[in-house]
């Protein structure tokens, strides 16, 4: 695999604090990499640094093998789609898309050909004569995308392209972006605060927080092997349950014990590592989707509980139950057609193989595999 982009210890701070710190990562040719993090964590700054629109304080940016740290934006052959699309309001859609080609001194014949081609791929051919103000949000976004793609850049930078789009259209656009990436095989750095977008499109996800990279991995690995509690709660459509408790020895066996005498069995592997935490507090995490609902006549599986359903929330094909066990609320994900109503009592099992453990102080995943 050929390396297309490499950032080495890049710092770009505003007022000495905000901005990005020590950012290093590599993107290979044709890869789709997402920068994921909540608002203000430095995602846009990272893109601007790659595009040369912000100068780094220190560190290096390599594009296609060349040290581009001091290249002006015009020389980088990297195009960016801004979050607000930044369409030129006084240009028609055609002129907007053609702008990059004109700057590259492409001849008129090829400009028309290329603009028409990309417009048909993005299904905006019929709007070429319109002004941006006459387009819907979704259409504007396609124009911005076409304008960035038509010059066949080395790297395409997308800054939260789907954030201004409603949920239904977002689903379709995720699929379209994916197939567009497959078709054009462009190297893409995609910025989002939406973990679903990142998980469903990326080859790799880079999680950022407060200007730093927290974890970088494939979507699957980030889901199953979160580096710390922050990543664990950020990734996953439904927020992980966190329970603080102590690791205690009970009749020669190691258990997790939470406030109201919730005593949980652990796997042998977990025990082997958690001996070091004996009599110490840890945070146990379990995803709402990992909690096993038992049939009424099913036998004991270990870590069996029954609790009263407090609240039911509906989420498309799923619903989320908030169940109290010994006064402690825990969320459980069940299929939409699972027959339950509020105030029912249900039985479920917290299977130890689905547990995550985090250090109380640092929040690090005790079982993180590098």
């Amino acid at each position, binding site marked *: 695999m050929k390396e297309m982009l490499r950032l080495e210890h890049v710092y770009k701070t505003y007022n000495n604090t905000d901005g990005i710190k020590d950012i290093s990562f590599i993107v290979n040719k044709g890869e789709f990499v997402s920068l994921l993090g909540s608002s203000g964590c430095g995602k846009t700054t990272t893109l601007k640094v790659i595009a*040369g629109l912000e100068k780094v304080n220190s560190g290096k940016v390599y594009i296609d093998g060349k040290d581009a740290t001091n290249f002006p934006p*015009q020389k980088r052959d990297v195009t*960016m789609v801004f979050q607000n699309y930044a369409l*030129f309001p006084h240009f028609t859609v055609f002129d907007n898309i053609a702008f*990059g080609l004109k700057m590259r001194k492409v001849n008129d014949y090829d400009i028309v050909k290329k603009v028409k081609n990309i417009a048909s791929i993005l299904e905006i051919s019929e709007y070429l004569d319109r002004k941006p103000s006459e387009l819907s949000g979704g259409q504007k976004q396609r124009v911005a995308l076409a304008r960035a793609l038509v010059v066949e850049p080395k790297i395409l930078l997308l800054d939260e392209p789907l954030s201004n789009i409603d949920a239904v259209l977002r689903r379709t656009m995720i699929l379209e972006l994916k197939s567009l990436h497959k078709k054009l095989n462009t190297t893409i750095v995609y910025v989002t605060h939406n973990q679903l977008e990142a998980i469903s499109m990326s080859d790799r996800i880079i999680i950022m927080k407060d200007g730093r990279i927290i974890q970088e991995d494939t979507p699957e690995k980030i889901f199953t092997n979160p580096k710390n509690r922050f990543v664990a709660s950020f990734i996953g459509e439904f927020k992980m349950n966190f329970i603080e408790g102590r690791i205690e020895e009970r009749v020669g066996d190691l258990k997790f014990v939470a406030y109201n005498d919730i005593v949980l069995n652990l796997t042998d592997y977990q025990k082997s590592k958690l001996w070091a935490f004996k009599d110490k507090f840890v945070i146990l995490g379990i995803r709402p989707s990992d909690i096993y609902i038992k049939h009424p006549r099913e036998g004991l599986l270990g870590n069996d509980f029954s609790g009263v359903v407090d609240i039911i929330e509906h989420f498309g094909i799923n619903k989320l139950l908030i169940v109290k066990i010994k006064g402690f609320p825990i969320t459980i994900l069940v299929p939409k057609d699972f027959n339950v109503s509020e105030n029912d009592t249900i039985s479920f099992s917290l299977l130890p193989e689905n547990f995550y453990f985090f250090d109380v102080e640092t929040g690090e995943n005790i079982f993180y595999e590098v």
Partner: protein
Amino acid sequence: MRLKIKNLIINFGLLLIIIETLTPIYFMIKYSISDRDSIITGGDVIPLWPYHPTFMVYKYLLSSPKFIDVFLNSVKVAGFTLLFALMLGVPMAYGLSKIKSVYRDFLLVFLMSIRVFPDIVSVIPITEFFIKLNLDNTILGVSLAHTLLALPYVIFILLADFEKVPPEIELQAYNLGASKTTTFLKIIMPMVIPSIIVSSIYIFILSWDEFIFSYFILGYGEIETLPVYLNKMLSFQPPQNILMGVAVLLSLPVFVFVLLIQKRLLINIKEGALKE
């Protein structure tokens, strides 16, 4: 019911504005085409419209080489002022819009300082300065003085518009390969056209009827602009119809100018209103 009253008040207001605007125009035009009998009636009531309307005054003025000369001077001065004020004001406003620190406010106050004092105060040092530079008694000198007066306003009008341009638009142009110059000329400038139009009207009108600076800088030389000429004429107590003829011709370019761009201006005002 409430709506009707509101409409009534608005319409009444509009009517007042129209009357207020049209009354002086009416008097100017009426007197300028009045025959002698309609002005000096010997005690009779002055008629609302002249008994025998005549364009004699205009024929006289437009065939007077002195008047033509003065009129052209005013056109030249206004033209140069327009050119200088835009050439300086547009880049200055753009530059200021890029400054994010407190220096900007300092510079703005500094720019405004020329208009903080009454013209009659600032005109003396400026005239003295212009005399030193041998700019007194020249079209260029008056134009530069007018530019000085117009600049603060031009900058204020344009600055507001430049600041409205989202920074991403500019970054996007660089990102797509445009140089700074191209970005400014092709992307940023067209986005502030409404303000450039408004500024142009303002500059033109300011220069066209500016008196104090023109009067001091031109002194008693042979170059005169229309307001200076009008002032000199007054001291000869000319007939009222000739005076009003000059006044009409003085206002004419302003009308023409506004008429020419009013359509464009209206579109911009409407677009602006819709944008909010």
